[in-house]
């Protein structure tokens, strides 16, 4: 010992913390301001989806998959549908493939615009948060127009898509692209590519070197920001993507250097918004006429899948990275015998936790925001256990009762009789 006493401080960040958007826990060991170790604990959002899926049929799981995540809701049921199609050998009509591309890329635009705002927010640039989310409303409106919902637009069906893209949508999408090209993207580039203050803050913070990114299997913009030219749409030759000129975007094409820091990840996202708009334009141009579903009626799918046997894997590049779903079918069972999925945030979180070692504590929020974590995706397997100890667990029903009670307390004159809606008869 050289007479110096070192203090290691452990700081728990989360599960509930103002710097985090979703519940997750990082236990950070500090030596002064320098990070020595980062430990990740997950599971605060566990919903037991795999367990629930054992009790659902093929089509019900499609809707369950959609609800894994609120932001990339199209990606999940898209990947699940691909896995099932591969397992059962179902051929998807070409028009449906193009519609999947268009909705998927619209989703990528809205997801990246969201993340640009979140990262700007974590560095205290809230004007950008409000303006980029304002710009995002335009693509949300289009998605609502196509699918009927802002999120969970239920576009997919096994063997095709459920909603067609009509001329009205086509015109709206082209208008939207025009608006983004001329009004939004120049400003976004001005901020994230050329603004000296933003560059000073984001450059060299949260660096994930290429070696670590490969070793920890980083995915999506996090990997591409470190110079890994990997994109499932391109590597897997997915659907009709090879005909549309998809390519992995790396920061090299924009700034000429690859450092693997937060700045580079944002550059990748900006580049991907440009790339997505081009893909949508080409897809709208090349989209053939024809039917959009392999099966005209949904119950035919169930009949076919009940006879199917085997296993299939679906892979797709979600806005955050590689998404992978696996299904296995057993003959005579009307649901999947096994359904398993992995989301890009899961490896990315561990990659960024490893990369934070040696950095400053102040970089933690922006580094975590820069991988665009989606925790409700990551925490997907669990069981609700109410019998450990003597705790009283409030179920959904209890919470609903309490909330009705409270409403009646506040306003005793209320006349409406709130009812629970959903599957089956409700008795409240």
């Amino acid at each position, binding site marked *: 010992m050289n007479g110096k006493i070192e203090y290691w401080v452990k700081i728990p960040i989360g599960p509930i913390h103002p710097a985090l958007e979703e519940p997750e826990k990082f236990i950070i060991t500090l030596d002064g301001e320098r990070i020595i170790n980062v430990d990740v604990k997950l599971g605060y959002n566990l919903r037991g989806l795999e367990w629930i899926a054992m009790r659902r049929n093929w089509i019900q799981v499609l809707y369950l998959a959609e609800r894994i995540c609120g932001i990339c809701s199209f990606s999940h049921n898209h990947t699940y549908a691909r896995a099932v199609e591969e397992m059962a050998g179902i051929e998807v009509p070409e028009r449906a493939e193009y519609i999947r591309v268009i909705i998927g890329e619209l989703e990528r635009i809205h997801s990246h615009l969201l993340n640009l705002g979140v990262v700007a927010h974590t560095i205290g640039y809230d004007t950008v948060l409000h303006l980029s989310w304002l710009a995002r409303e335009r693509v949300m409106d289009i998605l609502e127009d196509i699918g009927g919902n802002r999120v969970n637009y239920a576009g997919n069906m096994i063997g095709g898509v459920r909603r067609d893209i009509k001329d009205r949508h086509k015109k709206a999408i082209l208008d939207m692209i025009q608006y983004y090209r001329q009004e939004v993207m120049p400003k976004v580039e001005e901020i994230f590519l050329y603004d000296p203050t933003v560059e000073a803050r984001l450059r060299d913070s949260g660096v994930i070197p290429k070696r670590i990114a490969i070793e920890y299997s980083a995915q999506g913009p996090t990997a591409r920001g470190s110079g890994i030219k990997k994109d499932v749409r391109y590597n897997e030759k997915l659907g009709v993507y090879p005909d549309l000129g998809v390519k992995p975007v790396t920061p090299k094409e924009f700034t000429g250097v690859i450092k693997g820091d937060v700045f580079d990840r944002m550059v990748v996202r900006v580049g991907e918004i440009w790339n997505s708009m081009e893909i949508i334009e080409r897809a709208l141009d090349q989209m053939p006429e024809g039917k959009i579903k392999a099966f005209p009626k949904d119950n035919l799918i169930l009949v076919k899948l009940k006879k199917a046997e085997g296993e299939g*894997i679906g892979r797709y590049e979600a806005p955050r990275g590689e998404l992978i779903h696996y299904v296995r079918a057993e003959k005579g069972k009307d649901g999947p015998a096994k359904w398993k999925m992995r989301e890009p945030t899961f490896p990315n979180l561990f990659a960024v936790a490893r990369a934070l070692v040696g950095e400053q504590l102040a970089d933690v929020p922006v580094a975590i925001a820069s991988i665009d974590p989606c925790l409700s995706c990551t925490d997907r397997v669990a069981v609700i256990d109410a019998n450990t100890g003597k705790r009283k667990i409030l179920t959904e029903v209890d919470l609903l009762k309490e909330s009705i009670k409270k409403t009646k307390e506040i306003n005793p004159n209320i006349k409406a009789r709130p009812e629970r809606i959903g599957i089956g008869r409700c008795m409240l």
Partner: protein
Amino acid sequence: MTPEEFAERIKAKFEDVDVKITENKLPHPRKRVWIEVDRERFKELVRFLKEVDPAAQFSIIIAEDRGDRLTAKYHWEMFWEQGESLSVIVGTSCPKDDPVLPTITDIFPSSLPYEREVQEFLGIKYEGIPDPRRLFLPDDFPEGVYPLRLDETGIKPEMVKNAGHPYRRESR
């Protein structure tokens, strides 16, 4: 490397493993290589994958309860640097009365969280895992209950509250 060449290389090195190639019906058909190997030779095969492509990307462990055996399938994406990549699935299994598999965290460090997940949900013990703590389940979750097992060590019906159909109630 095409899937066929890769399958040949695996067969030349490991004569007793089961290799098959499947293809799907996309506009640009996609092949996958499925390998089935005993747990004794599993680690050797994983090492071989790393040798063939040092940048191979590990993606998922699919672990399952199949009656008297617990199976685990591992997926790798290989040769992604060359454009079209190769999707490889390696499956192995262990009997339920001796649920032990070798860890591969020393070869692919990114597999650690997946092994921790499988360990808590299926009860497969990983030999030599550097960090055997729980990842998803809470610390006060009972020992010896593995939520995704289908036998009596799985979730008991009385442990389940308000799951399944969200709007169905068994009791008032």
